[in-house]
């Protein structure tokens, strides 16, 4: 009986099996960083010698990028910046990575890079801990590890390129909201999910900023959640405008939310009366900036993150820095950087996009 069933299903089944490796994307989903491990070793503990800020930058360094996943527009831009920087320092650029963003798929790639004796691995970790044993094996083999965009656990990388500090993003959101509201009036936040770690951290900073005397006339009336779903964000934006007729600004610190809110406002009678701002992708926001719905919004420049990571990796491998706090190095066109606490290197304040500069960005 069941034998006959399995025979009848045999053909679709074998097809499924054949498709298996082509469809490993089932894992899906991005990683919310939950860094459970506290740094036990200082990042510089495996550094061989003291930093020599005057050491020449080595040429011909093999620098490999391992982003969260390939074929993702954001990834393409950030590693693109890396490629430019590696060219500037006359290194060998390599890009590898999984097609899915699952936690453990990056490990095989790290192992491959160890075998290929790369000089620097620049990684955006899908899981801060799953990559750790391999990264530490890489470091034992003399490879410098720079995490960017999404940090690996502190004790398994030499430096972390942070796009911006939580404080910096929160401050920047309030500053833009205040400018757009003319310093007074009601504002609302349209966030992603209620438990998104980064979003909540930014909103906390915003609340602290709003308590300052210079922001006393701004009133945060509601934090709504669009779950990073386009439809839900659209509906939530609509709801905010109906519930708070005097609302002046919607601040959406998520690329999905800000685009959905802008789409709603641009086609409604609120256009020109209610301002939208937050964190968004220039390519998604261009039309709303051009049609006047959005005056300004912000985001770090992903290309600069990849660019800075290459210089940091080269500086580490050349012995200019070891990843200890206070060390300084030069990062080409971006200028001078100082290593912060636990190997963190902050790119800088988010870039503000307006009608004047948005056409310079393509991501």
């Amino acid at each position, binding site marked *: 009986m069941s034998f006959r069933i399995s025979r009848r299903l045999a053909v679709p089944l074998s097809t499924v099996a*054949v498709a298996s490796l082509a469809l490993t994307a089932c894992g899906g989903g991005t990683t919310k960083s939950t860094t459970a491990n506290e740094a036990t070793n200082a990042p510089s503990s495996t550094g061989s010698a003291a930093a020599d800020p005057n050491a020449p930058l080595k040429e011909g360094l093999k620098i490999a990028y391992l982003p969260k996943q390939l074929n993702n527009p954001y990834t393409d831009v950030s590693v693109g910046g890396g490629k430019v920087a590696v060219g500037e320092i006359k290194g060998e650029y390599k890009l590898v990575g999984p097609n899915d963003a699952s936690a453990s798929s990056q490990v095989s790639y790290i192992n491959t890079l160890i075998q290929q004796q790369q000089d620097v691995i620049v990684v955006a970790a899908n899981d801060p801990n799953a990559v750790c044993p391999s990264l530490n094996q890489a470091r034992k083999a003399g490879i410098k590890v720079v995490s960017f965009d999404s940090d690996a656990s502190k004790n398994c990388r030499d430096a972390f390129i942070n796009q911006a500090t939580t404080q910096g993003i929160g401050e920047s959101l309030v500053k833009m909201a205040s400018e757009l509201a003319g310093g007074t009036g009601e504002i609302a936040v349209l966030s992603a999910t209620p438990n998104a770690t980064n979003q909540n951290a930014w909103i906390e900073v915003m609340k602290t900023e709003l308590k300052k005397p210079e922001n006393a006339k701004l009133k945060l009336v509601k934090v709504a959640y669009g779950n990073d779903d386009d439809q839900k964000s659209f509906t939530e934006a609509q709801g905010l405008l109906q519930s708070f007729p005097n609302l002046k600004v919607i601040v959406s610190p998520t690329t999905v939310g800000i685009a959905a809110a802008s789409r709603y406002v641009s086609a409604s009678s609120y256009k020109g009366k209610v301002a939208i701002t937050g964190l968004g992708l220039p390519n998604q926001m261009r039309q709303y900036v051009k049609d006047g719905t959005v005056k300004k919004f912000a985001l770090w420049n992903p290309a600069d993150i990849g660019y800075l990571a290459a210089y940091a990796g080269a500086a580490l491998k050349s012995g200019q820095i070891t990843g200890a706090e206070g060390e300084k190095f030069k990062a080409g066109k971006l200028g001078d950087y100082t290593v912060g606490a636990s190997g963190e290197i902050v790119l800088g304040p988010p870039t503000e996009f307006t009608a004047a500069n948005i056409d310079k960005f393509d991501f």
Partner: protein
Amino acid sequence: MSADTSIASSAGSGAASGPGTSPNGGGVPRGGGAGGIAGRFANWNVAIIAVTLVVMVVASATVDNFGTSQNFGFLVLDLLPIALVALPMTLVIVTGEIDLSVASTLGLSSAVMGSLWNSNQPIETIIPVCLLLGAVLGAINGFFITVLGLPSLAVTIGTLALYRGLAFVVLGDGAVADFPAVYTDWVTGNLAGTSIPNVLLVIVALAVVFGIVLHATPVGRAVFAVGASEQAARFAGVRPGRLKFWLYVVSGAVAGLAGVLWTLRYSSARADNGAGLELAVVAAVLLGGVSIFGGKGALPGVLAGVLLLASLQNALRLSDVSNEALNVVTGVLLIVSVLAPNLANAVRGSVQRRRHRTTTNPL
């Protein structure tokens, strides 16, 4: 049309060989001459082992860093979960059934492991609990399939979703990371003073047990008998339902073990661990010469299939072949593996028909 006849002939020859014959016997016709040559061609089990050896030798000679002991360690770690889960899967598929819930069982085992560790249970308790959990999940599959008589494909597709869902209920989308270093180091480490990975012991031990059970015990003969013809097996005194039930229990328990080892390998308990693995396992088993129609297969071939897939992926990655090309290569390989035995059968069938014609109609 021709596919149908070859399916019928392969099932027929399997049924004819029945219990008590050699496991490869199903595909190997008695008698010499042209039939013997075709028969040897049809013996996929030998062919796949030969192909695997050739690939490994060629890769060692041509791909930089493939033949190193460190890379061997990486290779074994990469194939660990597939190899383990493929062992019971071979038995299940030989009986003409399938278990697609294994990867979700792995994920749920990992999630429970993380959750128990979070609640400060000792790891020595957690590991047996996870194995037991796997067995229970397998028993649930077994109950639906053997007691209620539902098709295994439908049941295990259902539990594939159900167990994965439960994993997310247990652990959400967070990760638990701080497992004791003694255990995580053991899983990623080598036998003292050698470059033999510790986990190879686990694979070899289980492979020997499953190999003996399948190929040298009455249980193994019953497995082949049920796969060849459930009714004939029943007449011969086998209780197919009970046999299958226990196979599912074992399959679940091994998937639970794979979950534990996966978690320790990556130091990361996550609900999405192992997502999509079931298809890689089924693919490796089919590549190893096990007939999806049941009744035919051998464990050495399956292990060679696992090793072949892993080596190819490793070697291609070391040669900087892109992910997409890698998927195409594996896909083609799997189609060939499903087609080749049927083609061989067709060739043999036509040879025998011609011989039959010439002997009965001598002109």
